[in-house]
């Protein structure tokens, strides 16, 4: 009686893929496909959130801004998670803007059906809580990274985390955007990118970062990359467990 799944659909998102069929069916009719455009703001802490985005492609960053313009990127999210967690949690949990860094796609669920399913205490609630913990862990690791590691290492970490969520080995990002994300001056990014180019770890021309050899880049990463990666790999395995 059910339609066959299209080749690419909501269950490309791992939070949804990990739901048992009856839980998924409760939500399916309310899921709406959307495109995610570069720079699109999916939620900001000053506004009332009205939907959750189950990401199926692309990369979203959680960016914290202070009143005087300092910023820090707290976490990177792809199809292992989503944006707009406050919709489920009854208020803003993460004090950050959720911004699309690499264009992609998502399926949205409005606040009411999301809240209803969350309040059942079901697998969706469990998956969302696990996801929130992974976000918190990423944020916590950022604290360590900002204290102990160089701009170059932070850049490497960000490139690797993004590529983990994308097909291929290319990333389209201006130095200005990277500077804003890492919370450093643009000159710092230019210098760090220059070092990485000279080491042959990346090629960076006209706003496109190309990574010819991932293993070489990973060798330059601080431990923060591996720690964060293992957290969301664990999440992915648990989501798949259903």
């Amino acid at each position, binding site marked *: 009686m059910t339609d066959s799944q299209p080749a690419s659909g909501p269950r490309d998102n791992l939070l949804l893929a990990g739901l048992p069929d009856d839980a998924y069916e409760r939500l399916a009719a309310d899921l709406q496909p959307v495109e995610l455009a570069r720079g699109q703001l999916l939620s900001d802490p000053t506004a009332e959130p009205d939907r959750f985005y189950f990401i199926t492609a692309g990369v979203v960053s959680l960016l*914290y801004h*202070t009143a005087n313009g300092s910023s*820090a990127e707290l976490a990177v999210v792809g199809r292992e998670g989503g944006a707009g967690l406050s919709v489920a949690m009854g208020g*803003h949990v993460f004090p950050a803007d959720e911004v699309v860094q690499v264009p992609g796609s998502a399926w949205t669920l409005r606040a009411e059906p999301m809240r209803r399913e969350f309040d059942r*205490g079901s697998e969706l*609630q*469990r998956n969302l809580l696990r996801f929130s913990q992974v976000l918190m862990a990423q944020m*916590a690791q950022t604290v360590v990274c*900002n*204290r102990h590691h160089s701009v170059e290492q932070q850049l490497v970490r960000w490139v690797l985390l993004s590529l983990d969520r994308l097909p291929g080995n290319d990333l389209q990002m201006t130095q200005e955007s990277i500077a804003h994300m890492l919370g450093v001056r643009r000159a710092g990014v230019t210098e760090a990118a220059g070092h990485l180019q000279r080491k042959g770890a990346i090629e960076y021309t006209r706003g496109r970062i190309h990574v010819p050899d991932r293993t070489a880049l990973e060798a330059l990463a601080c431990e923060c990359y591996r720690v964060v990666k293992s957290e969301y790999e664990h999440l992915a395995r648990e989501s798949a467990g259903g």
Partner: protein
Amino acid sequence: MQGSTPRDNLLLRCLPAREYARVSAGLEPRELEHGAGCLQAAGLDDAFHFIASGLVSLVRPTDGDGHTGIAVVGREGGAGLEAVTGGASALAGGAVALTPVRVWSLEGEAMRREFARGGAMQYNLLRFLHALAEQVARTAVCKGHHSIDDQLCRWILLALDRLPDNEVPITQAVIGQMLGVRRASVTDSAARLERDGLIERARGRLHVPDRAALEARACACYGAIRAEHDDLHRCLGETSPRA
């Protein structure tokens, strides 16, 4: 004596009587000496620990054997959120008691069951998670952008918000570890703050004679974290001790 009942913790105090009754039988008191390491290492794995007195720092391991502080928590919250969110404790950072600490522990299954009911416990925990997320996020910004003097002011003030009187009974060596800076840097920074009359150093503790002056010196990160902390107290139904 503070900490001698579970209701000294605000998450528990602000439960309606019926909800509190459901969990109270399962609450186990534990004393942690200051410096007591990772709660996980102490075998308190799958449990949430409601802090009733003392100061705890959530920590994250760093290169080698060290760890760095991520956030401080007192009786407005607890350690072991992983027991609620369900992540494997092996991946969690852990917590360190910075003073003698009294916790009331509720084992993981009971905690998750109560959370899933969607009542006041869930609400309280999510509000605490919110305040904690703000502190972690702001700490990330502070560590990336602000001087060690700024960070030390922030840290001392956050500790004072969770301790009685105007004393921080913690060594500069431990504070340095929490900030992730070399001990010499902390000593130098503390000396500068003392020279400016903002703190008084004594063996194993810092005294703050004039809180307002220290707050004026601190970067905006303290104010932002403090605002969330006050909000948490309000939501939990209690006026913040320093409001």
